[in-house]
């Protein structure tokens, strides 16, 4: 029996993000004053403190900034996943997003590797943006 994995904590800041994910669209907040695209979701722009914000879709393309391979499960929900990869993905539009790399073996992942979003349904309500290798 595998225990359930944690689900996202959806609040007023993150609701638009997770709702877009259900439709398999990766969206981030873009500051209308300075153009900064931010993650994590926040009420104001961390660069210029403007409240003027728009949610914009991004390409879903990026590169691996860094990654680790979990050989231990800190949560019973991940017992059957080890070894699995957690990576920081630098999206082309700017945000750095923590996620998993799928679609290749952990040995094939490297820093600066080109990746693209790969959607994974966690439940009927939650779809997660994961990333898989892409041609540069």
């Amino acid at each position, binding site marked *: 029996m595998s225990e359930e*994995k*944690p*689900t*996202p*904590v959806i609040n007023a800041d*993150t609701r638009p993000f997770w709702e877009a994910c259900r439709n398999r669209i990766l969206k981030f907040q873009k500051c209308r004053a300075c153009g900064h695209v931010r993650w*994590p979701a926040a009420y104001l722009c961390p660069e210029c403190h403007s409240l003027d914000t728009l949610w914009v879709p991004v390409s879903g393309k990026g590169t691996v*900034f*860094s*990654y*680790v*391979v*979990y*050989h*231990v*499960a*800190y*949560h019973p*929900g*991940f017992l059957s*996943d080890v*070894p*699995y990869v*957690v990576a*920081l993905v630098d999206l082309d539009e700017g945000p*750095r997003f*923590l*996620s*998993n790399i799928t679609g290749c073996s*952990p040995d094939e992942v*490297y*820093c*600066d590797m080109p990746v693209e979003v790969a959607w994974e349904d*966690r439940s009927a309500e939650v779809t*997660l943006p*994961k990333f898989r290798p892409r041609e540069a």
Partner: protein
Amino acid sequence: MGALESGECRYVMLSYGHSALSSDGMLRMLGEFEVEDMVFGHFGAAAAYALAARRAMHVYRTGPGTWQHIAIGQRRWANLNPRAMMYDRPMSAEEYFNARWHVEPFRSPDNCLITDGGRACIITTAERARDLRHRPALVMGMGHDHPARSVYRTLDFTGGTGAKKAGEKALAMAGITLGDIDACEIYDCFTYTVELTLQDYGFFGPGEGEDWFRDGATEPGGRMPVNTSGGLLSEAYFMGLTPFTEAVMQLMGRCGERQLGPATRTKDPEIILCSDNGGIFQSHACYILRRP
């Protein structure tokens, strides 16, 4: 310090105690770092430091080849310290490389211990300390720096931690240079933390750690002893008090078999540098202590 100098306090006790091994308190605290990350199976400090370490491996020469010297060197100190959790558990290079991966690139011996216990230390003025039963250790310099920014957001988390400015401030206050330091007691939550802290203090340049640590440089008999109790990796986890109290004890001459000086074929310690580090390289304190 100000409260002691002004006479507001006479003696201050720094203490830490935790039933971390027999309870789940430590793991719960670490697990609740960033709730959003748990969705992707990311938990706690080991993996966060491992992300920094992996990026460093991409940018300059570091990795298990460097960290083995730190893990093994500290284990040799722990083997001289009856209080250390790893006192009777020697470790060879072969054993280090055969150890299980934890969160790769860290193997289990790259991680600090989880301990039931505690540590305490009394601080007072130099004047009052003169009348006490034991010879004290004196604070020569201290420096703090808190970059605070999450490592996940910084462009480059391979160096330039708070250790850089904190170390400079502490050396300036002490009026000495790195060349005057006889030993280091470095906050070592992970092996890579020791490398990056010493690198940011200026002991060696990025990627030069593997050569700097080579040939037992930081072990008993080495030219720059590091973490002479075994540290958080091989003695016990009492946060910054593991390195700090070890520096004090060494300067007081109370370390028995592991005492710096002739007993361990090292220099008699006049000056010891120690560090503490919080979050994921987000805050840093450096203390330089000396013999009276």
